[in-house]
Each structure stands twice: as C-alpha cells, then as structure tokens.
C-alpha cells in the first residue's frame, strides 16, 4: 500500500490513536504525506458509530474548508458529519469506501482513509489549531474517562 506508514498505534482504553498524526476535535485525523495531506476518521469515532453502511463524499477537485462539513458517514446507529480538519483542494477520494464502507471500521488509519488534499498555504497555521499526537492521547483519555 502506498498509504504511508503509521508508525505506532497507542491504545487508550479500547481506542487506537496513531502517532505522527494531527487530530481535529470532530474526530478526523490528518497526516502530512509528501506535501499533501491525507485525512481519515479516528478509531474512537468509528467504534462509537459502529458499522458504517454508507459514505457521502465530495469529488476530486472540490475544495474543503477547515471546520466545515464536506461529507457524511452513515452507520446503522447514526449519521456523522465529516468536518474538515484543514483547508485545501481534494486530490483523491477513497472510492473503495463507496462499495466497502466497512474499511473505515476495519482499518481507520490505513485502508480506511477518506481523502487526500492539496493543502493551502495556511496549512502550518491550521495544524497548530488542531491537536498533535500527544494532545490527542490526552484528549482520548478525557473522552474515555468521561463515560
């Protein structure tokens, strides 16, 4: 797979957090990848949603804006907005998710990636506004202790 490498997965309670990634509070992760940015959803959010049965994604060429919804996931239980963790132009959409949405649950940091984005020049500023790995681990601890 040319997905790039996930260095390490840390488990907080039942939920995996991947090292080297950035995390938005709406549960999307960001990985810098040769000047591009790959985006997916956290294991925590996907385990809470349970089986994803449907994805609604934009197309390559569409723009996304930080903190704004760019698509939805539907699980048996609930609908989840996909909120952009950073801004940019979509280069690639993971088409496999349309026919096999369960990839999201099975491999959230790998084959279950959602889009690859060409970021804007604001990328460094935007990444500072979201969580790095250490902050995300702490956040996951708060999430799991809360309930």
């Amino acid at each position, binding site marked *: 797979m040319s997905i790039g490498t996930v260095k390490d997965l840390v488990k907080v309670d039942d939920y995996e957090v991947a090292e080297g990634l950035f995390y938005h509070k709406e549960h999307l992760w960001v990985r810098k990848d040769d000047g591009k940015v790959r985006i997916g959803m956290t294991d925590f959010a996907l385990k809470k949603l*349970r*089986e994803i*049965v*449907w994805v*609604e994604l934009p197309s390559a060429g569409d723009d996304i804006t930080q903190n704004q919804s760019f698509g*939805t996931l*539907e*699980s*048996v*239980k*609930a*609908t989840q907005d996909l909120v952009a963790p950073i801004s940019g132009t979509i280069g690639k959409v993971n088409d496999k998710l349309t026919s096999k949405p369960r990839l999201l649950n099975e491999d959230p940091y790998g084959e279950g990636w959602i889009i690859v984005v060409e970021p804007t020049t604001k990328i460094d500023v935007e990444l500072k506004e979201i969580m790095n790995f250490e902050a995300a681990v702490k956040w996951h601890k708060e999430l799991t202790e809360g309930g």
Partner: protein
Amino acid sequence: MDEQGKKTHLYRFHAQNGKIVPFAGFQMPVSYKGIIPEHMAVRTGVGLFDVTHMGRVVVTGTNAEAFLNYVTTNDVARLVPLTAHYSVMCNEEGGIKDDFVLSRQKEDRFFMVYNAANRLKNFQWLTKQAANYSVNITDVSDDVAMFAVQGPKAEETLQKVVTKDLSEIARFKCSWTKLSGFDAFMSRTGYTGEDGFEVFIHNTPISNPRNAIVAWNTILEAGKEFNIEPCGLGARDTLRLEAGMCLYGNDIDENVTPLEARISFVVKLKKEDFIGKEALIKQKTHGVEKKRVGLKVLESGIPRFKHEVFKDRMKIGYITSGTFSPLLKRGIAMAYIQSKYAVIDEIVHVKIRSKQIKAQLIKFPFYDPGQYGHTRKK
C-alpha cells in the same frame, strides 16, 4: 445498583463478548459481532437475546381478568389460559401509556411484559387503577431472567434443550417447560418479525445468576449447528423496524393513540368500559388526522428521528425511527404523516440535512413476508 446501571445475569458474558451501553437503567449489550451479522443471523438462522431488562409483572386474583380488561385495550376475556396477545394501556385521552405482551398463565394469573423504560410508571399506574379490584400486582422483573430465541431455526434450536414438544405451541401460545432442568415459561412471541420464542426463567434473581447463565450457554450450544449469534439491542432495533413494529418512546407514546399508530387490532371498542374507550370511539368516528406509515428510501441516505417528511414541498409529517435495513440495504423509516397522504406506493420526500430524499410508502413489514418473517414459506 451500580451508578452506570443495573446488570443482568449475563453481564459478564456481554462485557467479555460485546459492547455495553446504558439503556433504561441497565448496562446492556448493543452488539457483539456487529449489528448487521447479528441481524442476518436472525433472518436466516437463529439469534439469542438477553432481554432481562424488560419490565414484568404478575397479576393474580379472581378479579384479574376484569381488571386487565379495564386497564388495557385488547379483549382479555378472549385470552384462554396459555395464550398471549399484544396490547396497549391508554390514558383517558386514548394516548398510549405503554405497549406490551400479556399472557394468561392460569385462569386467574396473568403475566405482563412491558418496556424497561416504563417499568416504574406502569407499576404505579396499574396499582392506582387496581384500587377497586381484588387483584395482586407483583413486579417480578428482578426475579425473572428473560431471553428471546428468534429466527427460522429458533424452534429446532430450542427443541434440543426443552422438554415440551414445541410443534404443539402455535404463534402467541405459551407453555411451561423444563429448560436445561429449570422450570421455564415460554411464549411463541418476539420483536423481530421472525418465528421464535421468549423464555422466562422464574425465581432467578440477578444476585443468583447461575440458572440463567446455564440456560443461556445451553441455548448457544444447541444453536451452534445453525450458526447462532448472541444479539444485542442494535440488531433488536433494526429487526423490529424491518418488521414494522413500534418502539415506545419513538413511534408511540402518550401523545399518540393506537388508531393513529395503526395498531387498532389491539383495540376492542365493543368490550365493556376501559380506560381511553370514549376518546378512541370519538377518534374512530371522526377519523385520525395523522397515521404511522413505513417509508422505504429510494436513494442513498438514512432518515433519522425527527427528520421532516414532505409532499409537493409541503411538510406533511416527521420521522419517528429510521435505520439502515440490512436486508434491503437501504434506509427505512417509520413516520407519522397526515392521513390523506397515507397511500401505499405514493412517493414523498424526507429532508435529510439540506437534501430532499425520495421515499416510497410501503405496507409493513419492509421485507417480503413470503420470504422472511414468521409467515415465510418453509
């Protein structure tokens, strides 16, 4: 009681094999292997549910039949011993206080199984209404383990572990039996649309769970050859929705009457006085303004609770439950819409976020009853 909720006899099994969620004061399994595989096990083979959280009362006494005929809408006089029926209790306005299955265990002993969330409310209501009747109402919820064995292979599975010949028990009939050596009461009922049984192991308090655990494991073992799956609340919800059955708190509540919910088969207006009768007769005469309908979504998207329903850009109702149907592989929902639009096969729109999604009115159940459910051709 644990601050997160009460545990059933099988809590340890659930926690080890499934995901636990708080539900109606209990810590219940939402799923084990996954909602979809559990759902499909029930539609094609057999599934086992722990539904011990349900509220259960025993009503006894020489006045029991008359009392139950007064507080419930179905005709209790027609319930001969060892039969059961679906029914509701209404308030004076005809609004549904709860829906439940009532079985007659003996001439003067009835067993009522109702929603966990309404346990306290119902017990108080029943007790209050019983003032002028010589009856005893006992909440036995904490002393009875309750499992549902559901699916086309339910009978074959259960037959291996009970003494009673199950072919003698027709749908909505009941029996006493021995289940892995313990006294059990069972009814050929369920909340999935499939053939199956609900099994009650009496005198089994949660503090002494052994008999319940043995029975559970025995059923799982017996169902192995049919690929039995333990099933959680997630599959219970998708199964009942596909079958077109109401969920209290979503599809029915005190603001909805059984006529609006289109479960009028449980309302026997010809019987003597019962709570809500006058209001229901009046409504029947005038006709209902809104009705519960089934919606099958024709595009992608899943309607959810509170989404609005439109016809020709006019709002005509709202969704009360919606999910992804594992069998139909599309969104399905129940909605209340203005009666004049409640015509089978008609197309309406559901507003899902900013989009208007096409949906078709269907007759319950959502599946082909010749192919699935208890009416399937063997």
